[in-house]
């Protein structure tokens, strides 16, 4: 059987941070130095622009034409078609950028504030002062409200009305957010090694404390029935069916060396997730086939071309292929079918 050595693969010169779908089968990749590049299975990696700021987050609009890039020194909107800067704002840490569903507005975390921009770079709203630098942002499914993570909890702020944000309080430093597709739950992963689960419509809060590591990634699957999070050598998957996960033992995806460093639910198949770990291994799991509390076997293991940490996993829109991106810059696509 023919094997492909990692050295023959396309390798980025700088460690990647995150990636996002762009036009066709291509993806846009942000690196830790703020370099923006494109990647496609046929062409490989091409550097597009240098944004001169430690890269933190990336979001490309649904039509694949404009990238919003966040970094340690601010954020930029970059026109991927004409390869030119649309706008830039410097001087504050930016941790998160998120386009809404129709691509009309991009929400940007800017220091302790949240700013909204239209695609041409016009700022239409600035909100905050939040209790700390905003760590994550997520649009609610109604496309009107945004969940904002900062120290002390989640704020749900309206982008259209000038009303007080709804507060979901938790005394701790929040790192990441996930909003369920039916807009009934908001989940945060936290610096204090806990997972907090807030019900949106009332004050119910559930928590799981005592993960061995901080929880930096939590995501709902497309059906909203499952939530996966890291924070341990196991990836924990919670069952959100019906009344929610309270008191229900989770599914356990075992053996992630140095923890689950990348999580990616299948775009359409409920309960199917790809996970990457600190040793470069990527596995695919069908969580519905697992038994609560018992570590389950993976459905499939992907051939890995690098032993460095998996930084990002991106499914293509068909769900037949996975793009895997490692910390050492190795990127490849694998077919799942």
């Amino acid at each position, binding site marked *: 059987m023919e094997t492909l050595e990692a050295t023959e693969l396309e390798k980025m010169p700088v460690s990647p941070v995150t990636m996002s779908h762009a036009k066709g089968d291509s993806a846009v990749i942000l690196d830790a*130095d703020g370099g923006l590049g494109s990647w496609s299975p046929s062409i490989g990696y091409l550097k597009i622009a240098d944004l001169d700021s*430690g890269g933190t987050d990336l979001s490309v609009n649904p039509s694949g034409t404009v990238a919003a890039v966040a970094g340690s020194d601010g954020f930029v909107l970059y026109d991927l078609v004409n390869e030119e800067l649309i706008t830039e704002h410097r001087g504050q840490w930016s941790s998160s950028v998120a386009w809404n569903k129709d691509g009309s507005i991009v929400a940007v975390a800017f220091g302790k504030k949240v700013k909204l921009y239209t695609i041409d770079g016009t700022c239409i709203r600035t909100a905050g002062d939040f209790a700390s630098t905003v760590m994550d942002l997520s649009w609610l499914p109604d496309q009107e409200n945004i969940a904002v993570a900062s120290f002390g909890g989640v704020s749900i702020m309206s982008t259209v009305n000038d009303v007080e944000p709804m507060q979901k309080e938790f005394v701790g430093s929040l790192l990441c957010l996930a909003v369920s597709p039916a807009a009934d739950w908001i989940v945060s992963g936290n*610096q204090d090694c806990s997972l907090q689960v807030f019900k949106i419509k009332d004050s119910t809060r559930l928590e799981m404390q005592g993960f061995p590591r901080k929880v930096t990634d939590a995501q709902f699957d497309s059906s909203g029935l499952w939530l996966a999070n890291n924070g341990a050598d196991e990836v924990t998957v919670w069952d959100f069916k019906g009344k929610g996960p309270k008191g229900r033992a989770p599914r356990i995806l075992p053996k992630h*060396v140095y923890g689950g460093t990348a999580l990616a639910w299948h775009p359409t198949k409920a309960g199917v997730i790809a996970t990457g770990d600190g040793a470069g291994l990527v596995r695919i799991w069908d969580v519905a086939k697992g038994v609560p509390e018992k570590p389950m076997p993976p459905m499939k293991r992907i051939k890995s071309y690098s032993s460095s940490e998996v930084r990002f996993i991106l499914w293509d829109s068909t769900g037949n292929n996975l793009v895997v991106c490692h910390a050492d810059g190795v990127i490849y696509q694998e077919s799942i079918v």
Partner: protein
Amino acid sequence: MEQEEKVLGPIPVTVITGFLGSGKTTLLNRILTENHGMRIAVIENEFGEVGIDDALVLSSEEEIFEMNNGCICCTVRGDLIRILGNLIKRRDKFDRIVIETTGMADPAPVAQTFFVDDELRAACKLDAIITVVDAKHALQHLLEVKEEGVENESVEQIAFADRIVLNKTDIATPQEQADVIKAIKSLNAGATIYPAVNANVDLKELLDIGAFDLQRIMDTDPAFLTDTEHMHDQSVTSVGIEVEGALDIEKLNGWLGMLLGEKGTDIYRSKGILSIADSDERYVFHAVHMLFNGEFTTKWEDAPRVNRMIFIGKNLDRKELTDSFMACMATENSKKKSKVKV
């Protein structure tokens, strides 16, 4: 089989503290411009103070987070977690990190950040905390009486320091210098003090010093234990003990284990060179909070067998410490006893 860790070594981190106007930025500029061949990433508190083209400069605004219901040990710097987290991903771009804190910064959350956050603990190592002190004006900051429960930051900055740059000696009178040195030594007798003008200290004394290295304690100026007067109304002190003779290691171990277990949160640092009965080697000891390490090192030969020990921390009782230390001295009986056991 057990998975082995990644091989990249931890990144050394130097923290520079000091009051506004003490010359922190001057020192930082010196570190950045001097020809030492090291690539340095700088985290500074105000953007644009340092303008070096090649250096990777990130600005930070102090964000202190209490992690766990107000427990002081769990107070960390959220801004540093963020910034260092990003720097770790670009670790091939630099050899070391220097953090410049604001004049008012409490050094404890800075130091604690490196072991409360699992990611940083694995990727970085704290090399030393350096405090820059204005020889002419520092004393008035140190003597400032704060409200009950409010820490005097300048006191904390000195208590945590491994190295102290006594800057601006050109504008301070000899008496002013002597007074400030006396005050510094009463807070932290273990830190070496470097008098300087324009922060002109040999960088070899400040970078890559491995402040926790046992050999370094041996090399420390023997005068570091000279008895000092307490400053008025001061809860942070260092207690130095210097006494000739031999210690009963059994008693010593029991006492140290108990002391650090009980007062580990109050005792920031402790270290010593000890003479143990029936051993012709120096016993060198170092502790941070309750984790401690001691081992026999070089032979005494003809040198006088003097025990030297220092504790830096809050609410230390000199008499109690000295008395309980003296109680660990070997008697004729215990000498015989330990001889039997060996």
